[in-house]
């Protein structure tokens, strides 16, 4: 098979979709290979930029960038590139009618927002869907926390008891409510996603609007699990906010997070307008290298091997969780190109005894240059047309920093642009 594509992306999480989109918008043909449906399928719908730097809560993430170590992806890219990447993402979402913006401080500078979770904790996040009224989170006095009968993951008593322990929420007046489930008794335990899907269609949304109506006008803010639709559809939100008579904010949730599905929906919609093909249910096994270039990736596809030729490659393979990094006793390597990642022989040294400590494994990954090209120990570029993005990169810890989607967007944007350029150069050769 002689088909060759400009940019081949591996991975359909935030980083992979961003890289594909950036390359596609530069006019390149893009093929994306993915094993599963990507991390967005189960994650939340806000974008974490930088919540904690150097162990401290970051109110203004842009200011806190300077506190990050030199090899952190944000530092490698530089502030201006990160800004451009976020702007690109915001523009895409705007065109998909699902605008995402940061909240603004009094000074007018963009700031992090402390979002409530279904555990009653607060998590700093940055880009919020337009439907999320960040101001209400700060100023609301009378707060109604709602859940739905049968939702195991979200119990209002926990949310209220935990939120109250934060200074910024201690003085609010909390009320709790439990909405009857439109499903009744079910064999499978209902999740927020089931309820969100009902909200997608006007004909099945009514149960929620009716349930909210009695509360209209009585509260300044309603906190609810993520059940306000599974697609990036502003009409759903308009209806729900109207019925509630006040801002409705979704609490961040454990998988399925629902919000991430909306982002995925919007990004794929944007991609399908371009010369873009997604190949599902395939796992890349190895790369074919010729000199300083990669020529193709070999993937496993339903029991057979299949060769995918391209001019440039982006590995957005999701690190340890996504299978982009393989961990064996005493060894770690990137699953696509086989780049060895140096680790201590003794596995116990990969982690700290304290579960939320600063673990070696959480910073482990492929080292890259500013263009997202993997480099070797001597900082020399390994291959001219290969780029990495997202969690498979080393130098950052998305979990403690709360920087997951942010790094994915920034590095995905850069990798996609650089791959598009490399593909253009490859074409001319």
């Amino acid at each position, binding site marked *: 098979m002689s088909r060759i594509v400009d940019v081949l992306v591996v991975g359909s999480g935030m980083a992979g979709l961003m890289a594909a989109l950036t390359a596609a918008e530069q006019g390149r043909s893009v093929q994306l290979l993915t094993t599963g449906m990507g991390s967005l399928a189960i994650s939340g719908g806000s974008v974490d930029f930088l919540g904690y730097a150097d162990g401290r809560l970051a109110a203004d993430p842009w200011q806190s960038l300077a506190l990050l170590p030199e090899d952190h992806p944000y530092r490698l890219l530089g502030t201006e590139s990160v800004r451009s990447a976020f702007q690109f993402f915001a523009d895409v979402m705007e065109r998909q009618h699902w605008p995402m913006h940061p909240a603004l401080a009094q000074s007018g500078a963009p700031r992090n927002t402390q979002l409530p979770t279904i555990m009653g904790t607060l*998590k700093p996040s940055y880009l919020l869907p337009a439907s999320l009224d960040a101001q209400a989170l700060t100023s609301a006095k009378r707060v109604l926390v709602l859940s739905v009968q049968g939702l*195991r993951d979200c119990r209002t008593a*926990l949310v209220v008891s935990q939120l109250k322990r934060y200074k910024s929420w201690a003085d609010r007046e909390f009320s709790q409510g439990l909405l009857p489930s439109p499903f009744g008794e079910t064999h499978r335990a209902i999740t927020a996603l089931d309820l969100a899907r009902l909200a997608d269609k006007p004909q099945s949304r009514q149960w929620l609007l009716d349930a909210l109506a009695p509360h209209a006008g009585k509260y300044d803010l309603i906190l609810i699990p993520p059940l306000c639709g599974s697609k990036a559809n502003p009409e759903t939100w308009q209806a729900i906010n109207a019925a509630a008579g006040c801002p409705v904010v979704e609490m961040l949730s454990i998988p399925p997070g629902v919000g991430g599905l909306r982002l995925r929906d919007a990004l794929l919609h944007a991609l399908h307008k371009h010369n873009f093909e997604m190949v599902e249910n395939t796992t890349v096994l190895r790369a074919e290298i010729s000199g300083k270039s990669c020529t193709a990736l070999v993937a496993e596809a339903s029991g057979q091997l299949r060769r995918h030729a391209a001019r440039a490659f982006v590995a957005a393979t999701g690190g340890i969780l996504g299978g982009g990094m393989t961990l064996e006793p005493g060894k770690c390597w990137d699953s696509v190109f086989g780049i060895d990642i140096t680790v201590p022989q003794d*596995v*116990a040294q990969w982690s700290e005894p304290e*579960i939320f400590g600063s673990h070696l494994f959480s910073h482990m990954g492929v080292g890259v240059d500013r263009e997202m090209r993997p480099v070797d120990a001597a900082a020399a570029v390994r291959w001219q047309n290969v780029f990495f993005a997202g969690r498979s990169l080393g130098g950052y810890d998305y979990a403690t920093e709360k920087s997951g989607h942010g790094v994915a967007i920034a590095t995905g944007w850069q990798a996609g642009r650089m791959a598009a350029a490399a593909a253009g150069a490859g074409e001319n050769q």
Partner: protein
Amino acid sequence: MVFNHRFTSRVVNRLHPGSDGDIFVPHGSITILGTTSMPTDRPDDTTPTSEEVLRLLKIGEPLFPRVKEYRILRAFAGTRPLYTPGNAAGRKASRNFHVMDHAEQGLDGMVSIFGGKLTTYRLMGERTTDKVCAKLGVTAPCRTAQEAIVPDPDEATLSRAAKYFPVQGIKLMADRMGDDLTPVLEHAEKADSNPLLCECEMVSLAEIACVANDPSTHSLTDIRLRTRLGMGTCQGTFCSLRTVAALSEHGVSLEFSATDNVRRFLQERWGGLRPALWGMQAREMELGRAVYAGTLNLDGAAHEQDC
């Protein structure tokens, strides 16, 4: 060490002179491989090492050639004192138990039991009471071997349970609840619903609530020890939150705040994950971090709540 799935339906014992890695034991949904043995001076020294895990795998491989492909959930260790008359050390020290009548040492009316293990406790009880009874002149034979500590649940009870508990989990739950099965059933019958809180090990709300209400339960770990909460595939990733949420709703308090309870619970699980942090369990652990740190910010909350 614990494997994620049950790959043998029988105990498989390696017949070699008493040594490490003797035995594969199926236990409910998982398989245990053990043990290594290290001398220690401290009774609280229970940290398994990566080296021990790898050593066990190597020893187990001839019995199960594919053992290195099987997913390891965690490793755990316990300490026990060994009675070593004549100073026999390490593997040479007997794992058997000893009942000692201190009259031999000039202390009348005092009997001690050393060593042994959980699986021999009733035998130990029998031997000890035999010795004591002999001193007291009681000659009736001990009935403990014939008496069931906990009777098996009857068919009627199991049918009752089938209405509220998932069909896969009923027998296992009945086994571990023992005498407490009836209160758990009654709890389920009175409630609106009885959802599974721990899906990996089929532990439902009724079971957890009953155990949580017991005065001797202070933490999620205490609940885990009675129910298997958090002992399955996800090692507490989903069930921790669901449990503190349910307990909150039902007004059941544990010793610490909800977030502290979860942190402690996950910390305890973490200790056993560390020595085998590779393969699929490494992915599981990352999912756990994404949930508790990345989404729920449990780590940040520790410094920001109650300030």
